[in-house]
């Protein structure tokens, strides 16, 4: 689904990514590990152009999104992202956080369709035989709102936080925030979710609940790219583990092979330090 070809990224003179090639297929769960400063977070942030790549291409569903001329917002709708520090919208309630993007974007699409239709109607007055079809408009804004709300509530029920729908994020624990951040990205019905160290800012006792939700998603066949320090998660859930160092992918493979029989000396050293 995502083909990364020779991805490069510089910050001024600092070369962070030095040519990354990787293919992520549908249903893949890729765990990216590596020492700090190895560029793994930058790599993840380049995947949805949060950082603009300096070179190379990222082909997502047949479109090169590293090309600056594409409308990145359209493609980001299909790529969820979960951050280390949750980044829930502080000025919105939990429910509004989840509804915000789907509601706004669907209403925007509706307005766009209405605008186009009025243009087409105007043109059809002069067109004679070559009349053009109107865009179908099946829903009103109110229907969209109800539908999005229903979906948001069912997502909240799924993580058992439906009673928190109307509170502000500042009242929640880290684990709750991160689980809400995950279902916020799910609300857009994405094809892939990018996780940027989702458990690193959590208290140890909260890590479990977040990993549990991620495991559920994995079991449902969601495509995931996870930058993580949770070796247990990488070993259990991922079907591919990628080791990055100095801006390059040094080794990748299935978890059994990766942890059981590491080849790269740098990876051996890294694993010996953390396991």
């Amino acid at each position, binding site marked *: 689904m995502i083909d990364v070809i020779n991805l490069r990224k510089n910050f001024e003179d600092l070369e962070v990514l030095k040519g990354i090639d990787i293919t992520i297929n549908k249903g893949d769960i890729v765990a990216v590990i590596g020492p700090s400063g190895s560029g793994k977070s930058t790599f993840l942030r380049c995947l949805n152009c949060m950082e603009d790549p300096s070179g190379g291409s990222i082909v997502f569903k047949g479109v090169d999104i590293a090309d600056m001329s594409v409308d990145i917002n359209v493609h980001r709708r299909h790529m969820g992202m979960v951050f280390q520090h949750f980044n829930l919208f502080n000025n919105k309630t939990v429910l509004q956080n989840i509804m915000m993007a789907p509601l706004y974007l669907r209403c925007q699409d509706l307005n766009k369709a209405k605008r186009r239709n009025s243009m087409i109607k105007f043109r059809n007055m002069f067109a004679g035989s070559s009349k053009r079809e109107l865009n179908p408009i099946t829903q009103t804004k109110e229907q969209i709102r109800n539908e999005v709300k229903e979906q948001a509530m069912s997502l909240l029920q799924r993580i058992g936080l439906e009673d928190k729908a109307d509170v502000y994020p*500042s009242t929640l624990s880290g684990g709750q925030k991160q689980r809400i951040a995950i279902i916020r990205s799910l609300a857009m019905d994405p094809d892939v979710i990018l996780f940027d160290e989702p458990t690193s800012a959590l208290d140890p006792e909260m890590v479990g609940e977040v990993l549990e939700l991620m495991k559920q998603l994995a079991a449902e066949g969601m495509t995931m790219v996870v930058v993580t320090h949770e070796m247990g998660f990488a070993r259990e859930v991922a079907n591919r583990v990628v080791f990055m160092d100095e801006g390059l992918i040094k080794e990748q493979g299935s978890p059994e092979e990766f942890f059981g029989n590491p080849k790269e000396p740098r990876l051996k050293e890294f694993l010996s330090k953390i396991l």
Partner: protein
Amino acid sequence: MGNFEQKVNKFIEIFLEEGGYVKVAEGLENTLMIAVAGLLIGIVIGTLIATVRVLPKYKLLPRVLNGICSFYVALFRGTPIVVQLLVFYYVLLPIIGWRITGVQVAMLVFGLNSGAYISEIMRSGIQSVDPGQMEAGRAVGLSFRVSMMKIVIPQAVKNILPTLGNEFISLIKETSVVSFVGAADLYVAFNYIGSNSYEFMVPYLVMALIYIVLVLLISLLIKLMERSLKKSDRRN
């Protein structure tokens, strides 16, 4: 104190019987109108400039806009408000042939002037919001404009509300120079009473009192607003 009583009586006489209160009401209305319009225009201009100044700068257009905005801010912060009033009223507007009253000129100039100050306030407010908020907005597919308007600016405004209140208070007080362009504000009203009675002490004291009351009312209003905006911070 017999002298003082006499002065007060004279003031009350002119204030009530010779139409002084009409002038004062008019002056109060103009003062408030200029200050409120100035603040509103200022917030719109200030928010626009602040947004331009926090845009990513690797494209040409944001850089050009940024240059224009810096120039604007330098111009309006670098000259006294009286000079700006005079230049607009006697130089710029006659040149472009736009005839508006002194009050309207004052609204315009105070708006443009406070826009320059509010832009800096707003910029610091926007920069005080965690960049992660913008990133999260962009990550779910919202555009820069929408993320800014729906997520970043509401939080920025909450942070800068006390400073914005300060700006409004200083606007109210600064409007006392609009008589330079013939707008009848509070100062003009009380000056009228004073010169009719040849007695300035009491009118000017009352004028000071009215300004103080205005400012106190506004501080109260800001405090209430702040409290209602703090909703999302409070733990329950």
